[in-house]
């Protein structure tokens, strides 16, 4: 059994209203020095040992992320 993490973020050119809203809230919270926030998705997968990187890449590329608007990274942890 292995644990795999897939992080999905919007491509830089796509507007991220949720990240923007957080930046906006920071001021009200009295937090300074955070200049940008982007929000994405984080997936933690339990996979059998036999599952190879290609399978996970395919999974990320077809299901977990929408390549039209999102990029992803894969980490085994």
């Amino acid at each position, binding site marked *: 059994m292995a644990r795999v993490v897939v992080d999905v973020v919007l491509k830089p050119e796509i507007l991220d*209203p949720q990240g923007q809203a957080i930046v906006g809230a920071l001021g009200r919270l009295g937090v300074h020095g955070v200049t940008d926030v982007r929000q994405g998705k984080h997936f933690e997968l339990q996979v059998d040992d036999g599952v190879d990187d290609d399978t996970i890449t395919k999974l990320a590329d077809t299901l977990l992320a929408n390549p039209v608007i999102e990029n992803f990274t894969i980490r085994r942890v």
Partner: protein
Amino acid sequence: MSVRVGVVTFPGSLDDRDAARAVRIAGAESVSLWHGDPSLHDVDAVVLPGGFSYGDYLRCGAIARFAPVMEAVVAAAADGLPVLGICNGFQVLCESHLLPGALIRNDHRKFVCKEQALRIENTSTRWTSEYRESQEIVIPIKNGEGGYVADERTLDELEANGRVVARYVDGNPNGSYRDIAGICNEAGNVVGLMPHPEHAVEALTGPGTDGLGFFLSLAGVAAA
């Protein structure tokens, strides 16, 4: 014989009844299609209705795309079958790559339900021929992730080829790029629309009957 329009039900579809009713009010016959059934049962057109297929938990339309019925829809669309995706159905069409671009979280980050004015910009599709060029209509909009996005090139291409079917007027309700409310594929048989024409087919329960044209267009074209 009247036109037979399939209305797909995915787990979590909500507006399938309303879509079927709109089809009937337009004088066509509605045929229920089940997500797990790969047959389209010889229908003349397909509506992918609104709702929250599979809860829309991952991304709207992302999981519905893999339903057996969608394989058939994708194949038939390539052969010219008229397909209308409304709201969640539009999202499914984008996820299935039948239409370019994607729909993301509304810029104000809230679900929005209201009566929305649109301008019909392409009246030559299978679903919009009943409208006049540039006709303004009011139909409900209701979505949390209705912001249409695509890269600049795609957007330019859509504009250049008249593939923007409908545009928001009097205010953009969700941050859609270039106020886009609906688009079509190159052939014009596949249309995706964020607002809900099927909720505007009876004056009693909607803002009016402006939505009926989508369903009448289909009945007319198919009959012709």
